[in-house]
């Protein structure tokens, strides 16, 4: 007889527990409301205790169980959330709300095979919300190596759909994850009043990102005043912290009047929220002169707009020049395009073209710069800049810069 006592005890304990659980929930809807209020105040642990109590008292109530699963999810207790949700699925029943939470759970736990399967089920079973589930499906496809299919499915979402903006954003994110960019560019600089023979500059550039130290290799060809020369350059962007990195530059050319024989550059960038700042220096060694350029920048992003300012303090021998550059850019992230207005004042030679001619005085420049994405992975970037250049003291001439860059990403 003694051996049966523990069994009896367990039966008694079980019945008392069930009785207490049921008896203690006098007003289940009030308890449910309290749990929701606790959750609204981010008191998830207390809300979970309340809901677990309610679920044990009313195990047949699917709404309570779903909410308990939701609470576990919000509390980042994904295993328990999964267990609760699993009890809500059967071969005959899978409510849309349960499936929605399962999709969020797969996404949070990076269970991409699970996400692929369940989003596929959601697309088939709940076609009314197909576009919304296509987003989940595309994420899963991309993460499981089916990038092409992910992009194809996202591009099928209609412009009229509520999910269109998200789909376009995701498409851009996926496209931007490609690591290689090849660019060819041409810059023509012409002069008038008084005129002069035009300058021609061309470059071919390969950029690689998504690696420990992203880099760019560039070969420049220049033809100015009847002289031609080549220059090789390398840029590197070693990351220092999550919000700071270095820009490093090295350029080499032979002894010629078009490019400096040596150029070195270094700049430290620090990003804070939507503000980016930098400070750096450039060194240019020409055949007859050495030039130091001290620079920095600050820019802020407000919604789709970026306003940036960059000053230059240039030293050649004992002479100092100051230059200011202001830019206002309007970006369209989903199409990776922008339009940019540039305003500059000072003695800075235009863009990467660094010539011997640092004796120019004040110049005023205004330009417009477009970047347009075509066919997902091609970019066209026309740049126009007009300059009123003081080429000898108190004498001005017109300078026109027209540049075209064509890029392909892969």
């Amino acid at each position, binding site marked *: 007889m003694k051996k049966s006592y523990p069994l009896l005890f367990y039966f008694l304990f079980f019945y008392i527990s069930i009785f207490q659980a049921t008896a203690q929930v006098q007003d289940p809807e009030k308890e449910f409301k309290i749990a929701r209020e606790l959750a609204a105040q981010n008191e998830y642990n207390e809300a979970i205790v309340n809901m677990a109590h309610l679920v044990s008292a009313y195990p047949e109530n699917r709404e309570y169980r779903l909410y308990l699963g939701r609470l576990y999810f919000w509390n980042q207790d994904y295993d328990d959330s999964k267990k609760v949700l*699993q009890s809500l699925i059967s071969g005959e029943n899978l409510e849309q709300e349960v499936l929605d939470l399962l999709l969020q759970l797969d996404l949070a736990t990076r269970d991409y095979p699970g996400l692929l399967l369940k989003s596929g089920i959601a697309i088939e079973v709940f076609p009314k919300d197909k576009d919304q589930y296509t987003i989940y499906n595309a994420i899963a496809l991309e993460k499981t190596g089916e990038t092409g299919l992910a992009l194809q499915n996202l591009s099928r979402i209609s412009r009229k759909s509520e999910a269109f903006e998200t789909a376009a954003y995701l498409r851009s994110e996926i496209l931007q994850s490609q690591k290689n960019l090849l660019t060819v560019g041409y810059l023509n600089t012409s002069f008038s009043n008084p005129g002069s023979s035009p300058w021609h500059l061309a470059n071919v550039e390969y950029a690689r990102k998504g690696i420990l130290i992203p880099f760019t290799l560039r070969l420049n060809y220049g033809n100015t005043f009847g002289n031609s020369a080549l220059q090789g350059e390398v840029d590197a962007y070693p990351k220092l912290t999550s919000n700071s990195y270095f820009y490093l530059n090295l350029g080499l050319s032979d002894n010629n009047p078009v490019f400096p024989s040596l150029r070195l550059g270094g700049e430290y960038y620090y990003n804070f929220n939507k503000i980016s700042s930098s400070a750096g220096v450039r060194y240019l060694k020409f055949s007859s002169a050495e030039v130091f350029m001290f620079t920095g920048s600050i820019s802020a992003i407000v919604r789709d707009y970026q306003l940036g300012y960059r000053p230059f303090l240039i030293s050649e021998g004992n002479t100092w020049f100051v230059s200011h550059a202001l830019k206002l850019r309007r970006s369209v992230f989903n199409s990776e395009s922008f339009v940019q207005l540039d305003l500059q004042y000072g003695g800075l030679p235009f863009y990467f073209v660094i010539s011997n001619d640092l004796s120019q005085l004040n110049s005023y420049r205004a330009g417009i710069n477009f970047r347009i994405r075509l066919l997902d992975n091609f970019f066209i970037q026309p740049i126009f800049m007009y300059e009123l250049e003081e080429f000898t003291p108190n004498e001005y001439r017109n300078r026109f810069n027209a540049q075209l860059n064509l890029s392909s990403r892969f």
Partner: protein
Amino acid sequence: MNIVLVEDDEMLLKSLTFFLNTNSHKVIPFNNGLDAISYIESHFDAIDLVITDLNLPFAGGQQVIHTTRKITGIDLPIIVLTSSGVESTELEVFDLGADEFIAKPFSPNVLLKRIEKLKIKN
């Protein structure tokens, strides 16, 4: 179609069961090979298709395929779910007598298309 589905991942088993049921199939789900084999042995006349994972507790997917072929000959189509993606495993699966295999992860409509393909074939 009456489909025997054998998969040890409970969530996958339930999700696929629900999905196939909503697509006018009747699914008999099992989370281990042993129970599935026992069911196939006693109900082979009422089954139209077997879908099985390879790695299963108690009796593996290979045993499910082997038993199914032993009992039903070539009449009952078998689809194997494999997570290996290794060519040798795929060949092994065909050698054992499977008709189709689907590498995980997969979209459920891929499974539906394979089922339709087998339906036409048979």
